[in-house]
């Protein structure tokens, strides 16, 4: 099974001027690959990362927005699939990391570990839907996926990670938010 950090390293090779929206464990492992101004670590409420990403995608249709969302997070905001599919932003790539656990809250399982998130996104009406379980396949497709006309959805099936250190004050630092806002509002 893939690991989240392996998937993110693959993704990192293709990311240039895209905005990356992430929260909790995904934010920790994405940030470990390097600082960049265009990281938007969505704050305050689990599940809203995809909604923050939709707002950014609408506000800046000239930029690609990549949302790295955990499966537990998506479960808290499943309606976003319907909203995003209806609005249909062409510049939004929605990647859901499915490790089947609430990792940041003690590693407890999500209510149904066999949930088919890609199937849900397809039924909601996303323009492009993918499902990756093999790293080689994701490596082959990642560049193409990021350039597809959206909204694009992909599930990345990964194994639960080892213990992570959640430095929330660093992740959600006000200067970091101010820096990306300066870029996005210009």
């Amino acid at each position, binding site marked *: 099974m893939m690991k989240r950090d392996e998937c993110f390293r693959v993704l990192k090779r293709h990311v240039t001027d895209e905005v990356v929206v992430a929260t909790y464990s995904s934010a920790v492992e994405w940030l470990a690959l390097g600082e960049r101004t265009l990281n938007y670590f969505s704050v*305050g*409420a689990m599940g809203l990362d995809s909604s923050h990403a939709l707002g950014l995608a609408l506000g800046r249709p000239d930029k690609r927005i990549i949302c790295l969302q955990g499966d537990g997070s998506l479960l808290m905001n499943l309606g976003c699939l319907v909203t995003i599919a209806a609005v249909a932003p062409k510049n939004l790539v929605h990647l859901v990391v499915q490790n089947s656990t609430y990792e940041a809250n003690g590693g407890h399982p999500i209510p149904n570990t066999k949930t088919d998130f890609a199937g849900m996104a397809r039924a909601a009406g996303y323009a492009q839907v993918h499902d990756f379980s093999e790293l080689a396949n994701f490596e082959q497709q990642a560049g193409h996926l990021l350039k597809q006309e959206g909204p694009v959805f992909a599930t990345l099936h990964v194994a639960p990670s080892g213990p992570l250190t959640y430095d929330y004050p660093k992740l959600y630092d006000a200067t970091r938010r101010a820096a990306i806002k300066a870029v996005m509002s210009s």
Partner: protein
Amino acid sequence: MDADLRTDGDDEIELRGSPIIAALKASGIEYVLSVPDIVTSRGLLRPIARDPAFKLIRVCKEDECIGIASGLSYCNKRALTLIQHTGFLDSINAIRGVAVEYAQPICMMIGLLQHDPRTTPRNSPRYGVRIVEPILDAMGIPHHLINEEPDIAKVRPAIDDAYANSHPVAFLVGRRPSMS
């Protein structure tokens, strides 16, 4: 008579929807994010849905509005969250985290379902209405009651201030705006 059983004909005071909509336009609101609310349905949401000056995003649950509005604000785009007070109560954690703790200009227009406009919200016999203003006070969110036509003058300065100083603001709609 219960407020939810009152008809527009029972209300001796008319709160017109069009000046509220004009105030939103004057405030630079471009996006309206909404879950339907019976108080504002006819006088605000329906005309907004037909108005090409607005981009209406219909969401599934009210807390989505808070995230979307935050993302838009990073891009200098102004948004109004148009919801019912039950949806406000359901979204408290999102408002706490995104709007208050991270000081985002989240502008909310909240219909007070089942409110009797002849009373103040704090004195409403309806528990759900009675707790709205105390919750906003506890969260430090400025709020304004839109109950009669002169109240509409509060809208633009409050929205401008929210965006200028990056903080949330709430407008409580106390009676059903008419379609005129």
